[in-house]
């Protein structure tokens, strides 16, 4: 019993409580919520965000941030559209898009890891830069020239009732949990986030780890862009604008500290469920998209505010006890 109570007091326990509340409220409000179709729909509609969020965990654990992911999604989707339009077959075009993602990510990583520029500014610059390139590629058109099998992959069930994107998401989840919890690389990420100097003295190649991470998130963003293009069947220059808000909210709500080094991947998986169910619940209650964005913004602030207040109250009471 005491173990359960102790678990409930942690951040993950708090998230479980919120999750149960959300599910209860949602299922009271709408009978459609707990059907398998709706559940798959919930995940399918924002699978791009949650895949990126899983990998964003590594970046934020590393005490860095990547704001350019949504723009990279747009860029890779637009590049795919332009490549296919110019007559290049689908498979090489997909490969080229992933290459663009890797190059973009490595470009970010180069400035952040090698030159030690703040990731906030570098990725903010690339938030504008990648989006600008996407606009240069397609200007103000919308391209929809994809072969039917590609669109079917994005829109129709692939294995049983599950679409391909959902299977990719599940694969990514297993991969991320494995890497973060059971490999040396995962431990390196935590150490670098806790204290970069200590990591350096412990003989960890910080530059290489950071380069890997930023390249990986570039590739994943490009993959998410491709999935997005497949789901919509068309690409435009403003695809995925301001997705970074949802992505960062999911990661921080999951209990990953913005200062790096703290938090677990299980919390993030819980917070993915919470954010998706919240959005779905609001949609089922006919709340407009703008209010949903506002709620996500408030959630982002609260997810850092609550632990901070907790710590302040704790410190205050300890000081008082000391004085007594």
């Amino acid at each position, binding site marked *: 019993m005491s173990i359960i109570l102790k678990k409930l007091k942690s951040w993950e326990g708090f998230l479980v409580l919120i999750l149960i509340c959300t599910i209860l409220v949602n299922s009271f409000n709408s009978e459609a919520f707990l059907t398998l179709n709706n559940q798959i729909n919930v995940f399918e509609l924002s699978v791009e965000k949650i895949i990126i969020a899983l990998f964003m965990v590594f970046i934020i654990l590393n005490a860095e*941030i990547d704001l350019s992911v949504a723009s990279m999604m747009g860029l890779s989707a637009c590049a795919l559209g332009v490549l296919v339009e110019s007559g290049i077959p689908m498979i090489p075009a997909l490969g080229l898009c992933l290459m663009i993602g890797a190059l973009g990510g490595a470009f970010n990583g180069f*400035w952040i890891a090698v*030159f*030690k*520029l*703040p990731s*906030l*500014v*570098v990725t*903010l*610059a*690339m*938030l*504008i*830069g*990648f*989006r*600008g*390139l996407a*606009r*240069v590629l397609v*200007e103000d058109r919308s391209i929809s020239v994809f072969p039917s099998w590609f669109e079917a992959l994005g829109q129709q069930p692939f294995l049983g009732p599950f679409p391909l994107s959902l299977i990719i998401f599940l694969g990514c989840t297993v991969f991320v949990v494995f890497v973060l919890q059971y490999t040396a690389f995962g431990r390196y990420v935590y150490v670098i986030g806790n204290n970069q100097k200590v990591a350096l003295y412990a003989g960890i190649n910080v530059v290489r780890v950071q380069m890997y991470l930023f390249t990986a998130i570039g590739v994943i963003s490009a993959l998410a862009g491709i999935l997005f293009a497949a789901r919509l069947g068309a690409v435009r*220059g403003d695809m995925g604008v*301001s997705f*970074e*808000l949802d992505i*960062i*909210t999911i990661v*921080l709500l999951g209990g990953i500290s*913005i*200062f790096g080094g703290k938090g677990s991947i299980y919390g993030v998986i819980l917070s993915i469920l919470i954010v998706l169910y919240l959005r779905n619940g609001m949609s089922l209650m006919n709340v*407009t998209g*703008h*209010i949903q*964005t*506002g709620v*996500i*913004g*408030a*959630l*982002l*602030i609260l997810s*850092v*505010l609550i632990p*901070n*207040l907790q710590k*302040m109250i704790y410190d205050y009471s300890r000081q008082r006890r000391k004085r007594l």
Partner: protein
Amino acid sequence: MLNAMVALSIIVIVVGVYFSVRKKINSVKVNNISNLLHRLRPETLRELILLLLILLVVIFFSIVIDHYLNARLFNRVSTSVAIIGILAIGQALVVLTRNIDLSVGAVVGFTAYFVGQQLSQNNEMTPLVAICMAIGIGALMGSFNGFLVAFCRIPAIIVTLGTMALFRTLLVEYSDAQTVLTVNLPQWLLELPRINVVSYEGLHFRLVVAVMCVVVILFHLILRYTSFGRKIYAVGSNPEAAANSGFQSRKIIFITFVMCGALAGLTGFMYLARFGNITVVAGSGLELKSVAAVVVGGINIFGGSGSIFGATLGAVMIDLLENSLIRWLQISEFWRDAMLGMLILCSVATDSVVMKRFRKYRLKKITQKEEKL
């Protein structure tokens, strides 16, 4: 025209160099360039280089575009700099304390819409009341940010990313999908952007530009000569040292956010005066431009160094590029966002690589000289 402008800029640069090294010239003789270089403050050097770059951009575009350099260019660029410039000053204050404000675009949009709606419902409202209302709402929103950053200890990037969405939602809900229309606005507001303070052969020095100049000079003086201004630099350059010297860092950070919000409110008013028709997406994208102006203007993103003049020059540079790229027909106008991103990255990279070396070199020279004495 071209020659006159080039000559004018060269004079400005020479005078700038002279004034910044004048005091030292009196005491130590300037023998050669390297001596002059290490006498110059790195920040001043950075601003002079930026000024030179702006000049080069003007010369470049006047070669590739026909009828580029004329009075209309000055009028157009100066009016749009007035908007982004004031916003950049607010952003500069926040960045100087090692924070960032991404919600300014939403604040501009909200104040522009709110004041516009009040004015179209109540045409008798005096200009002063409208301006005060805009500044007040902006300051209120800024204080919300500032409270969360300074007193709840949440990183500024998280707070302002959240409030960017929150304020925009507030605007969408408040507007109820209506648009502020130019026809409903009072006459004085529509004439405001066209009022000239001085005009000479088609060169118009607009009132809004004069307002920007006043704000620039005011904040430059505050940052240079008041203890509050010096404290902003102190908090930004070394928070621990500032706290140990007994500065109330939280209060200072809070006030910079309030000021940033107030300036964003003023920008919102000018945005309303300039564009008239305000929709719910008004001002989106301005937050990135203001950060760009600040970073290009040489304000260190780690806080503690840079000047208001630099931020203003950064705003001029960005607006000049944007206004020129639209008119350059060989290149798609869609390039301008990509260019803006590269510009930010280049200026941060030069700051951290080249300027750091220059600072070290200068420090070495100065200590050598002192040892000799």
